[in-house]
């Protein structure tokens, strides 16, 4: 169920309970503009889900995995899925990647995202509420 009409967003936690999306975002040479674009997409996803904005979430070769395509100096491609528990009301970020020459970096990003999704289904505690990237914005290049 959405909270205050907002969708719930979660981040996958790795084997050491580190937030994979924060690790990814903090490790990228992301400019302020790139990060702001990503933040806007996530704010809108939280507000309206995938119902209103056309092609906000794009499907990938992996059936359950979708990407948010943010094009800037770096082509950011956070990978996520619906649910996987409350399919209608929540999204979980599974893996962060970038696109270079029309290919994900790392190349097996989709497989990793799917592996995280399956692991999460088996271990529902391996995720936390999505943490805003905006906290780190001042540290951007």
């Amino acid at each position, binding site marked *: 169920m959405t909270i205050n009409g907002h969708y719930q967003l979660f981040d996958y936690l790795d084997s050491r309970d580190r937030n994979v999306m924060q690790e990814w975002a903090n490790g990228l040479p992301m*400019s*302020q*503009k*790139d*990060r*702001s*674009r990503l*933040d*806007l*997409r996530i*704010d*809108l996803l939280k*507000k*309206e889900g995938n119902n*209103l*904005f*056309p*092609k*906000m979430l794009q499907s990938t070769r992996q059936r359950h995995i979708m990407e948010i*395509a943010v*094009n*800037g100096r770096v082509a950011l491609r956070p990978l996520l899925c619906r649910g996987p528990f409350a399919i209608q009301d929540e999204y979980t970020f599974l893996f962060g990647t970038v696109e270079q020459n029309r290919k994900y970096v790392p190349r097996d990003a989709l497989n990793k995202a799917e592996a995280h999704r399956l692991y999460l289904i088996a271990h529902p505690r391996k995720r936390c509420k999505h943490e*805003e990237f*905006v906290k780190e*914005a*001042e540290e*951007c290049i």
Partner: protein
Amino acid sequence: MRNLLKKLKNAFNSKDYRHGYVDEFLNVSIATQIKVLREQRKWGQKELADEVGMKQPRISVMENVNYSSWSINTLRKLAEAFDLTLRVSFESFGNRIKEIEQINREALERPSFKDDPDFVEKEEEAVAVSFMVLIEANKDLTRSNEMPMTNLAPKKKMSLAARQINLPRRQSYEAPIC
């Protein structure tokens, strides 16, 4: 609303960040509004393309939040196809944030000219005007010691009211003169 503003306050101290954020919203909101307006009119992409004089794949490209190469001319053509007017204006960041917080399907829908409430003469309004005419005519008749119109048959009332405001007589309103 204030949640988003509160969240963005620090980040917006960076000029690059705030401009990147609202520029991205501009692209997203235009693409979304085109789709919302098309669906409001129950058109497919092909129908919109025909209205604008473009090909359907071009509409598909524009109805994508990742599209960013907008031109005023294209937007003007789309506005004409939807029978709307295009507004391009400069805005403060605070107002833009309010807009972001309030965005939803209803906020993006617009009626075309033929459904514009400011231009459509409502039936109720016409009835209200007729009623006011009747009341005024009745007052005048009462003042001149004639029979109040409340006692008259409806056809007679209309006929007298029409004469009070010098409307041309119509066959259907005509009644025997007393």
